[in-house]
């Protein structure tokens, strides 16, 4: 079975819930390939179809049409217990009547492994998630973070080909979530298992993933590395969902961008050679307030946020634009509300959004 570049192939998969007029299309012809040993994240707002897709890989739902393959073999018709795939549930779904070690042993026992092998694997897994001292406890005696690690150990113990994680960190508080993010990444490296992670938290996705698939409205919006997704969002949905973005329209002429009354940016602010009216997205940290900037506007608001300060600027042509500066010790504020400012852009700061007609 090995030798396949892809661990999971999702081939034109659609999922419809309900019948007739009440039917909803949860997933609309999604195709994507997940590489072996990859930390792959399905990212999107709630209701975007990411969890449905995960549940179809696990076997809890069957696709209405299309096919899902694992190492080149179709999973269609295979029940959850017939798939070498394990899930870490959002609510953890630990068995409340079993101890921590019994929970972790469950999958191996169901696979019919002998006692010694099960005990050895359980010991190893509990050490991996740093819960060796809690083997005899029951789930309700553990904190949320500990329960989460038990769920992880339980899913990893049978050494599945793919580990599915359904919003598995969202129930934890911020500090614990940060720790678990690092921990998950470590576990993925150490076990060499393909991780498919579902989250609505873009920061989580950017920190942990090798690649991200952004989903919206049951459709696949963009697949790429965190850098690609962040720096080169292909459409408004992706640009809007991930990070902070200013959406602007301009006229591309030659290598320049013209913003009407607000002025023009000369030297290749747009990464592509598109011409005419264009819809653009720009990250606030790719722009700066600068004396020699090509755009003019008035600061409408200044938001201090500790590590950086966000300036909301109304351009002279009426469009709104966000500019972010990192704060340095002892540095004065660059502008206050009502100041007239000029804005400059890094080369390639503006990203062309496809599927939209821009108008200056």
């Amino acid at each position, binding site marked *: 079975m090995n030798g396949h570049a892809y661990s999971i192939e999702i081939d034109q998969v659609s999922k419809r819930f309900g019948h007739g007029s009440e039917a909803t299309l949860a997933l609309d012809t999604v195709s994507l390939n997940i590489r072996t040993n990859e930390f792959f994240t399905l990212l999107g707002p709630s209701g975007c179809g990411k969890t449905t897709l995960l549940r179809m890989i696990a076997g809890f739902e069957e696709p209405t049409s299309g096919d899902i393959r694992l190492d080149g073999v179709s999973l269609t018709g295979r029940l959850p217990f017939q798939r070498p795939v394990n899930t870490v549930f959002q609510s953890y*779904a630990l068995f409340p009547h079993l101890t921590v070690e019994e929970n972790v042993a*469950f999958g191996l026992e169901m696979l019919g492994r002998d006692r010694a092998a099960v005990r050895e694997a359980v010991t190893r897994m509990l050490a991996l998630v740093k819960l060796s001292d809690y083997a005899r406890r029951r789930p309700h005696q553990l904190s949320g973070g500990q329960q989460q690690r038990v769920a992880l150990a339980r899913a990893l113990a049978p050494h599945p080909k793919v580990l599915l994680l359904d919003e598995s960190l969202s129930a934890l508080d911020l500090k614990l979530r940060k720790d678990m993010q690092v921990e998950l990444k470590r576990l993925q490296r150490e076990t060499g298992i393909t991780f498919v992670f579902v989250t609505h938290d873009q920061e989580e996705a950017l920190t942990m993933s090798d690649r991200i698939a952004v989903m919206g409205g049951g459709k696949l919006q963009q697949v790429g590395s965190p850098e690609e997704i962040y720096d080169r969002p292909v459409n408004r949905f992706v640009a809007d969902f991930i990070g902070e973005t200013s959406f602007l329209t301009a006229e591309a002429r030659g290598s320049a961008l013209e913003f009407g009354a607000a002025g023009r940016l000369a030297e290749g602010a747009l990464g592509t050679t598109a011409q005419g009216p264009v819809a653009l997205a720009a990250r606030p940290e790719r722009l700066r307030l600068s004396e020699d900037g090509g755009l003019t506007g008035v600061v409408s608001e200044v938001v201090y946020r500790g590590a950086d300060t966000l300036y909301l600027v109304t351009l002279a042509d009426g469009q709104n634009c966000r500019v972010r500066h990192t704060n340095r010790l002892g540095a004065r504020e660059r502008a206050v509300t009502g100041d007239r400012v000029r804005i400059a852009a890094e080369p390639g700061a503006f990203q062309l959004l496809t599927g939209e007609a821009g108008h200056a």
Partner: protein
Amino acid sequence: MPSIENRLWRFHGVAPTAWLAFVYLYLPIVILVVLSFNANKVATLWTGFSFDWYLRVLENDNILRATRNSLVVATGATVVSTFFATLAALAMASGPFRGKGVMNAMLGLPLLVPEIVTAVASLLFFLALGLELGLTTVLIAHIVFCLPFAYLPIRARLEGLDPRLAEAAADLYASRWQAFRRVTLPLILPGVVSGAMLAFIVSLDDFVITFFVAGAGATTLPVYIFGLIRMGITPEVNAISALLLMVSIAFVVLSYRVGRRPS
């Protein structure tokens, strides 16, 4: 569940009303138990303390036979009705299907149908089938009316069960049967035990239906007590009733405690 004090739920006169209600409910039972220890032959005339009536109950072959009948019927009805109630509850929890609402209502409906209607209907049904009235007909009738009592606690328990647990079991390579055996059953067991105990006590108690469908020789304890009372209330009746009461209380307490066991 820690109870939270709520000032808004405090009303005047709750305590006296509660006491009145408790007296109304339990005073007759207390009097019955007290009079079962009465030395006098006239049940309502207290003359002195005695265990005589209890001894006489235990020496009475008819009472012992009726007790055995009651226990056989109650045990049989409990086992069979709990088994089917568990299957029904599992089916109802398996997800939406056509006619689920109707079916759920029909499972609980026997609780609302007047017992006398069920009794007459059962009698006519057995006669129409040509079945001879006896312990078998009593058992069949008891299985039927015990079903909803066994069903409801199991259903309640299943409803409180996270459906993800069954999914997690399946995800961890448990077949349907293994998932049921290792995860679902242990978790709903308190509900099953609770339902079984309820069924047992309801069966042990039943008079109306049993009276209609029991033939000669199939006398159960409540039917026998009714027969005794027609000949006048003796302290013997009080003693049997007190014994029955003890069994009932033991079961209800047990059922309550098992049902409340944390999942």
